């Protein structure tokens, strides 16, 4: 599994899988090959915010049977998207308030399957620094 693979769209099944995905992001985001003048490092604070949201949604999905979809980090826009598809999801208000306040973009759209898809987009996971 590689979350930087554009084809990857699978949900995390365990905390170990999530940890492995985070490690992959840290290792593989150190700048484009051949451009040694600029290094990209994961903004750990921002990443931990995304991690919080993913874990919250992951927890809720276990409770409700909803499906969490984690889209690959897009290096062009430095964005990653977390989606959850469900027909009914109950949050403690403090959890959803936190998730909403951490995401840069949020949409909730109905589907033809009588479900809704909540999409949260997070920018700014990678900081570029001169070396």
């Amino acid at each position, binding site marked *: 599994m590689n979350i930087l693979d554009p084809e990857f769209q699978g949900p995390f099944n365990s905390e170990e899988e999530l940890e492995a995905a985070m490690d992959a992001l840290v290792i593989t985001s150190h700048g484009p090959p051949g451009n040694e003048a600029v290094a990209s490092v994961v903004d750990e604070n921002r990443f931990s915010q995304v991690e919080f949201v993913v874990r919250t949604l992951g927890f809720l999905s276990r409770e409700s049977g909803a499906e969490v979809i984690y889209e690959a980090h897009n290096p062009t826009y430095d964005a990653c998207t977390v989606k959850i598809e469900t027909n009914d999801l109950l949050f403690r*208000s403090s959890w959803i308030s936190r998730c909403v306040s951490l995401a840069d973009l949020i949409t909730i759209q*109905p589907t033809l399957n009588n479900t809704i898809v909540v999409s949260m987009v997070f920018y700014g996971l990678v900081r570029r620094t001169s070396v």
Partner: protein
Amino acid sequence: MIDCYDIVQTAIEDASNGVFKGVRKRKDAMRFMRTFCTAVNTLSERLNSSSLNVEINMSTGAITVTMNCPYVDMSDVFVPARFVFTASLASHVRLSAANGVAISFILPGVWENAI
């Protein structure tokens, strides 16, 4: 435009004349409800909500305010800020598929000794 407080107040009065007959309403809870409803009205307008419903759990007194929207886009800075504020006044928020997207805010009841 539908006024949230009008609907909530009507539902509360109906319940006060029914299963909660004789149970006192907490004044602070009614003031809180007005603040909450003002927040819902603003959010509902920004999200182009098509309807607003209020349900009261006759066992616990919990009040659920549901807004239905065709689609929710929180790309405007104001909307998530208002959503966070509105949600923070509720104890739980439910997102579900019903007439598009249904956003329900669940609040404790306004009656004394209500859960």
